[in-house]
């Protein structure tokens, strides 16, 4: 995979009779293995851009290449398969399934990887839970964890399929500054050790400082 290449990407929403231009002609490149930040104030189009790169939404125009793949050409089933194989997601609100334990939440994406032996699945999950420092909480449910711990579970879940690209939408927004810094440090460490490409969004200047590359958005456009 040779990183992400976004070219002339636009996204419009129709709200009644009004057309909202969430993204206008955005072009950017993110190298493989980088720790990139999409920065900008609320409403600048950060989440929209991440959704488009993450194939959970479709652009109005423009192209997205992830590695050698022109992902805009993929149909719905292929996009779903692509997400499960190559992408990891970390959400601002963690989005863990409340009925599952930490271990089960992390293992959830592997439900779709039938080709993996059960033993390997178990080992991967255990290793990641260990890596994010939650080995003692593997049997806990999300409501028994702190915000920082929940986000670490979400990080482990995003990494369990060994994706090349992890997209994190304001991963520290719901955390206090100290916990946020810890979570970011964890992401950075994984980025260094596993060479996983991370693209995360934030509007917090302290978080931006840690990124290897910053793309600034304002009103749906990339700032020079």
């Amino acid at each position, binding site marked *: 995979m040779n990183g992400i290449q976004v070219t002339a990407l636009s996204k419009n929403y129709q709200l009644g009779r009004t057309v909202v231009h969430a993204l206008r002609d955005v072009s950017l490149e993110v190298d493989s293995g980088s720790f990139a930040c999409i920065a900008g104030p609320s409403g600048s189009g950060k989440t929209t851009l991440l959704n488009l790169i993450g194939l959970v939404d479709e652009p109005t125009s423009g192209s997205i290449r992830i590695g050698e793949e022109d992902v805009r050409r993929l149909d719905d089933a292929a996009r*779903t398969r692509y997400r499960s194989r190559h*992408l*990891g997601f970390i959400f601002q609100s963690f989005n863990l399934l409340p*009925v599952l334990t930490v271990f*089960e939440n992390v*293992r959830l*994406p592997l439900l*779709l990887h039938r080709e993996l032996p059960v033993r390997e699945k178990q080992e991967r999950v255990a290793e990641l839970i260990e890596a994010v420092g939650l080995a003692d909480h593997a049997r806990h449910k999300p409501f028994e964890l702190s915000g920082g711990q929940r986000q670490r579970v979400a990080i482990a879940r995003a990494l369990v399929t060994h994706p090349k690209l992890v997209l994190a939408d304001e991963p520290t927004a719901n955390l206090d500054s100290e916990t946020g810094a810890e979570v970011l440090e964890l992401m950075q460490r994984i980025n260094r050790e596993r060479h996983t490409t991370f693209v995360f969004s934030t509007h917090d200047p302290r978080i931006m400082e840690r990124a290897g590359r910053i793309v600034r958005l304002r009103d749906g456009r990339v700032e020079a």
Partner: protein
Amino acid sequence: MERLGLCLRNLRRHGWRTRIIMLIAFFGAFLTFVFENLVEDIAVKQSDMFARGFSGHFRVLDRDVETRNSFGHYYCEPADMLSPEQVASIQGFLATQPEVSGYEERIVFTGVLYGAQDEEHGFMAMAMDMDRFDRNFTDLYYAEGRPILGAESDACAASWYEYAEHKTVAVGSSYVMLLPSPDGGFVDRLVTVTGGIDYKSLPKESLGFGGMFFDLAAFRAMTGYRRAMATEVIGFLADARTEKRVLERIRTFLAAEHPELQVVSWRYYAPIFGEIVLGFSVALKFVEAVLLFICVLLVVKLTAFAIIERYGEIGTLRAIGFGRSDIVLLFTLEGFLAIAAGVAIGFAAGTVLIAVLHRTGIANSLTFFEYVIGKGFFPSFHPQKILQTAAAFLGVSVFAPFFPALAGGRLAIVRALERR
């Protein structure tokens, strides 16, 4: 298995909702299971009882005899009788039919009864094997006779007067009757009533002195028939609802072997039994359909609620790689498990109830029910009905949650994530 585990967890999470679905499924399955088995038993019981109580479900007789008589009973001459070979052949065929629970030969004739001033009164009479006739449910009288002595005629006239005046036929009373003789004429015989139904609810006036039954062997001896001959063979079905297909088979057999004979359904009772059973079945089917409909409605509604509540979850699952079909499967499986659990418990409870009733029997003293289903009613299990009921509930279990689940699978990921 992992998906199943996830579904089970989600079911526990929606405890009250799951319990409502299970409860409705339980009641629906329980009542349907019990109703279906009971109706089947009642249908069979009714078929058997009415057929044996009256005159069977079908009659194999000479084509000419049936066409000559438009009022349901006929004057019998020896020439109309089936030969012993015909009777044996028909009985041999009926023995191979699994739906036919019994058959016998019978002589049907119109007798003449003398009243006061030697007034003649016609009546319908039958001679048959009285051991196989269910006397508990007949509205006719059975009798025995012998050649008349001259001094007995006054007593007979008194009996007839009693009947004409009070519409009662006392056991022990005697009548003079003209009965068909083997040479084509009549012989007069003294007939004494030896038994009859004890009417409890049915007005005798509405039935009148409709007919009389004789023991076949005694009748032959009394009137002088020396050969084992009968005017027809009557047959019983274990279940009156099988009448059409059985009669079709008998017709095919007769066309090949005895083209001069015909089979006719018992013209009055069989359709009535069929309609009673059908009416009962329709009423219960309606109740079952309402229960199923409520069940479907609740499952659809509650599954839809579950989906609305878990939009965010659907978005998350789709984002991490679950396909639309995975989401549909997940929610369908959840609904299915809730209904299936309720249905399984309902079937188990129904099984216990039927098993207990089968062992203890249902005793009833209500005249109507006694008349309809008899005193001893012992419900049993009917695999075909159980399979049909199970199939209906399986269909509901799968399709009721499927359609809302389909809507859940179609959600746009971004919209689902936004509505968390």
